[in-house]
């Protein structure tokens, strides 16, 4: 059951990611990406990372993609402008890079499987991990508290940068 669900969610995520990068229309692209976020959130639930799954929907689908949609609608690209994308930039090299990446990754992955890096079914059946909000919070505000503070400054910088970049006139 779990494995079947993983495959369904994974196939959904992969297919919608592919559709997302091949759509001409940015709005359609963004909506397919939202579906991909849901597929991944499903996989996070199956991996017992409930908090991450909820935050995935909350942050990615709920905030980041809405921001994308807002900007796409704000730009209001006209249809001829959307469909005038003459040809993909560097089509050959892009596809070649992706295929090469997949090839290298597949070889490395198969090698790792052969070398027994990944735990087999027996070893996996004893794995336990508490992925609740409490466990994440204890780690986040314990071990990683410095990193947490730094991300606060990162966000502050991003806010300032976004405001300054989009201001028409700085006075």
């Amino acid at each position, binding site marked *: 059951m*779990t*494995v079947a669900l*993983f495959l369904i969610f994974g196939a959904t995520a*992969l297919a919608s*990611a592919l559709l*997302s*990068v091949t759509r001409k229309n*940015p709005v359609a*692209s963004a909506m397919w990406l939202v579906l991909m976020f849901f597929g*991944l959130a499903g*996989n*996070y*639930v*199956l*991996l017992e*990372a409930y908090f*991450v799954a909820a*935050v*995935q929907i909350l*942050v*990615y689908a709920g*905030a*980041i993609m809405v*921001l*994308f949609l807002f*900007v796409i609608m*704000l*730009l209001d*690209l006209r249809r001829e*402008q959307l469909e005038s994308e003459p040809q*993909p*930039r*560097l089509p050959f*090299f*892009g596809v070649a*890079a*992706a295929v090469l990446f997949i090839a290298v*990754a*597949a070889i490395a*992955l198969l090698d*790792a*499987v052969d070398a027994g890096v*990944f*735990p087999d079914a027996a070893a996996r*059946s*004893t*794995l336990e*991990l*508490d*992925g609740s909000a409490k466990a*994440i919070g204890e*780690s986040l505000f314990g*071990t*990683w508290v410095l990193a*947490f503070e730094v*991300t606060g400054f990162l*966000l502050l*910088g991003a806010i300032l940068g*976004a405001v300054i970049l*989009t201001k028409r006139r700085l006075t």
Partner: protein
Amino acid sequence: MTSAFLSPVVASGLAIPLEWVVGLGLALFAVGLLGVACRRNILIMLLSVEIMLNASNLVLVGFSRVHSEISGQVFVFFSMVVAAAEVAVGLAIVIALYRLRRSADVDDAHDLHDVDYGPVPGLKLEGEPHHHHDHDEPEAQPVGATGEA
């Protein structure tokens, strides 16, 4: 504290082989790479970067589960924060660029790329999109890349 609701779906232990999780992550990363390399719409390029970030998040969660180490999920949290910051700044740049060029095509923004004294930014803010550069020009040909492939 396991959820009563989710218990029929998730058994104890990990039923999913980790190599499948990693494989899915790699495939998603390749799709994102394809988008960044091939598309010229800056919005879709940003979306593709999100796909790549999500792929790495998935792998982080998978390894966190296998190593029974919660830090992996904390890193996913950080990566989401970075993604949010990146999108905020990236979209601000898109808006600023669109104001100057009236286009969401990355190839229209190459003022620093070659010697082309196009219209001075700020002089022609509103109005028709100006194609000061023809796409047929061979300047986009990466000569060095053929040697790599």
